[in-house]
């Protein structure tokens, strides 16, 4: 498997990271270098191996259904680069 320029552009778009056209090719080379090295995982026999999902051998702990949080709208928006009337504001989205 080898990434071409178009795939890097697609992945960068999925990751919402702007990559200049001129940087796509070098980026592809860089990523291919790393992915090529990762290919060696193919040498490991993983038939009948369950993928590891968590380190700790325990099951998910549940929380009681109580309202214990929230009620501090000002703290929530305080760090917002752009907020108005208690809302976060972003460039207009047209559906």
């Amino acid at each position, binding site marked *: *498997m080898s*990434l071409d320029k178009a*795939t*890097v552009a697609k*992945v*960068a*778009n*999925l*990751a*919402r*990271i*702007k*990559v200049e056209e001129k940087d796509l090719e070098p*980026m592809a080379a*860089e*990523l291919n*270098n*790393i*992915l090529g*090295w*990762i290919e*060696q*995982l*193919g*040498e*490991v026999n*993983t038939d009948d*191996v*369950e*993928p*590891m*999902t*968590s*380190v*700790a051998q*325990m099951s*998910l*702990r549940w*929380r009681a259904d109580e309202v214990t949080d929230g009620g*501090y709208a000002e*703290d*929530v*928006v*305080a*760090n*917002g*680069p*752009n907020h108005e009337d208690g809302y*976060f504001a*972003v*460039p*207009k*989205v047209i559906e």
Partner: protein
Amino acid sequence: MSDLTRMTIAEARDGLDAGDFSARELTAAHITAMTASKPLNAFITETPDQAVDAATASDARRAKGEAGKLEGIPLAIKDLFCTKGVLTTAASHILDGFTPHYESTVTSNLWDEGAVMLGKANLDEFAMGSSNETSYYGNVVNPWRREGDNRDLVPGGSSGGSASAVASFSAMGATGTDTGGSIRQPASFTGIVGMKPTYGRCSRWGVVAFASSLDQPGPMARSVRDTAIMLEAMAGFDAKDSTSVNMPVPNFEDAMTGDIKGLKIGIPKEYRIDGMSDEISSLWQQGIDWMKDAGAEIVDISLPHTKYALPAYYIIAPAEASSNLARYDGVRYGLRVEGKDLNDMYASTRAEGFGAEVKRRLLIGTYALSAGYYDAYYLKAQKVRARIAEDFKQAYLNVDAILTPTAPSAAFGFGEKGDDPLAMYLNDVFTVPASLAGLPGISVPAGLSKDGLPLGLQLLGRPFDEETVFRVGGVLEEAAAFTATPTDWWRG
């Protein structure tokens, strides 16, 4: 009065108890040291005023007989821990100006035990790096230099600021986080002790996430005992972290009995990698001999999938990161670069806000999870990870702890690894396998390289058996009798 910064935490604790000095004096001495250490760039944010206030409050508590486990001890906090009212950056441009309105569980625990924060320690951006060269706030410099050489060296990473602060006597201890070696490798590079607890031992709540299934906070200090004292304060069950394990926190200091007679120490043959330098292999042999001399039984073991740990890690960690870092989008906090529409704002903000290494990993991680590649990369890596964990499980049927080098080399110079990210990734070859398996590990300074740089040995334990790790670590530390310190060239 002798220099208050040269003590261990244990010594300072005794001195405070005895009334030889106050927390205010202790803190003042460290603020002076911190200020003098600016050339090391170990701190992103210094909080001397808060530190003085906290020390004053600490003295008051002590006077009332309410001293905690770390009462009055000045610490550096890796700037990955969210601290209420104090800028928290993860060393990234994208978190510009972010001031949390909450305090991480681990730091809360430390303050509850009386510790004093000196400031927020520099790190690799989002903890992604092994040399502390990826911080938006600039490189951290290792207090150590090669003998007869004035060039700056890296402190290791990602907890490079924490390591540098402790090694330069600016802080008595520091918090770190370890995802693939980020506590242990910088500890080895700077001649201090770094302890990564079992995954689930310390809460991750309030710690900026890099790779959720691997991230684990831990202590860094100048002695094994100090890390034991710190971990006891940091650790504990946290209902706010679903991966936190509900187990009592043992008295780690008490576990350091100084006696390891009859313990079985495993030596994994796969860690004898191609091209291992003579000084690393002889240091390792020296460690084995020390263990033997202390009455431990040395057992040769095999961890057959060791060589696949790094490539598996470089899929799993970036994949998780690609999702964990999606929240940095310029909407609710941090940097925003305006764009022509919402998507353009996202892409521009993230392009400007993230550094090259972070972007590289986010792209790798996004690709590894994308349609058509998930099975080949992510799922495969998680299966390999399961095999690595199984290797350790089998080994621990026969041994109580495992001894290896911490890193394949001593600290290196800036830019010495060239442009190849793979060369940098190899730094973590000995630390990553235990991270994947979630095991506890400690790096203990054990000797000097031929250039006079510190080198560490790593001890790994069974899950939740930090006690054995501290016990063996204490014996190793005593045998190594590592007393070398860097010259304080940075004071100018």
